[in-house]
């Protein structure tokens, strides 16, 4: 089955042009701005062309800010067994990705990981909840 549509960034980074499942990565995100965000989930927006996960992130001074993280295509995620409630409000996640070109608190998620190391909303749900 080829319905593994999302999270192809790690491969695509080897190319001069970066592709994601839906649109060109470079149109929206900046490959020179890698970010790692750890925080608690405040909302999951499950819709096309990409799902969005919102998390509250605390910086080193204790200030909390809400980030929006773009994930995969919902139809592909659904076929791989994921559902909107695979992540719940309050879940703690670590997101590795790239920040938006406009410098806002928006990022593309290359990887979303739970504290026990399980990946969430990856192309395959093997081992996922």
């Amino acid at each position, binding site marked *: *089955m*080829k*319905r593994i*549509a*999302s999270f*192809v960034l790690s491969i*695509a980074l080897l*190319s001069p*042009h970066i*592709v*994601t*499942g*839906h*649109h*060109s990565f*470079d*149109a*929206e995100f900046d490959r020179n701005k890698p970010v790692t965000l750890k925080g608690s989930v405040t909302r999951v*927006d*499950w*819709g*096309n*062309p*990409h*799902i*969005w996960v919102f998390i509250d992130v605390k910086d080193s001074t204790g200030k909390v800010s809400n980030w*929006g993280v*773009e994930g995969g*295509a919902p*139809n*592909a995620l*659904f*076929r791989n*067994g994921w559902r909107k409630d695979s992540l719940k409000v309050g879940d703690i996640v670590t997101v590795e990705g790239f920040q*938006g*070109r*406009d410098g*806002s608190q*928006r990022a593309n998620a290359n990887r979303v990981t739970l504290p026990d190391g399980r990946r969430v909303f990856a192309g395959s749900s093997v081992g996922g909840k």
Partner: protein
Amino acid sequence: MRTILATALGLMLVGALVPALVTPQGRDAALRQGSGQASKSGPDMKAPAPRLPNGKPSMTGVWDNTRRADVTNKAIPGFVKELPYTAWGKAKWEGYETFMQTNGDYVGNCLPFGMSRSLYGPHPLQIIHDNDHLVMLFEQNSMFHIVPTDGRPFTKDLPPSWFGESVGRWDGDTLVIDTVNLNGYTRVDTIGHPMSARARITQTFKRVNFGTIEHTFTLTDPKTYTSPWTVHDTWALDSGTILLEYACMENNRAFYEGRIKPFVPPDDVD
């Protein structure tokens, strides 16, 4: 969970396939796909291709269309070894990232992906086929494309469009579909290989057995490439998949939060 899901999808597929597979052989096969027995064993993918009432092979089914984000990707069989750019084509390829920053990304705007990016995108394709028409139902943006298969002439003075106008004809048991009158705004693939409004797409569909279509995609575009080139695909019948709605703008934050600019079409693609 996956087993339950597959069973449910198989049952739902019956309703989609039964009206379209009209021969006794096809109808039986379609029914088998939805029966309790079928969910264990599935249809016989090596059985002969189902036939339309006119005797030609039917392409009906949901197909596991090959994902090609880059038609030159050597990891995917049937790729193009080298794209023979014209000077214009090479400039378009090398300038794509800049173009997107200045003119916006058309798919990021939820505009149509066009024929090749719908075929080679990450979402499935369903074909409904009868004596007179082949209809492509693309999950990508929930788009459809209707192809008459009687070899008629192309329509005169039709406005150029994202998917163009397609006409099919039979060459023995192979269906050949030509597409022209493209607007030139679309790219070949996700990575952005270029094409122009002068492009002609030629596809061939050969259903070699119940479970397999051999498909080719040939691009003839003298403005962009010095010679035609062809991609070869083998598609498996994907009897466990149903198409889902794809309402592209419902959650397109990239666009409505302003990170992707409103698309300004190129003015040099004719």
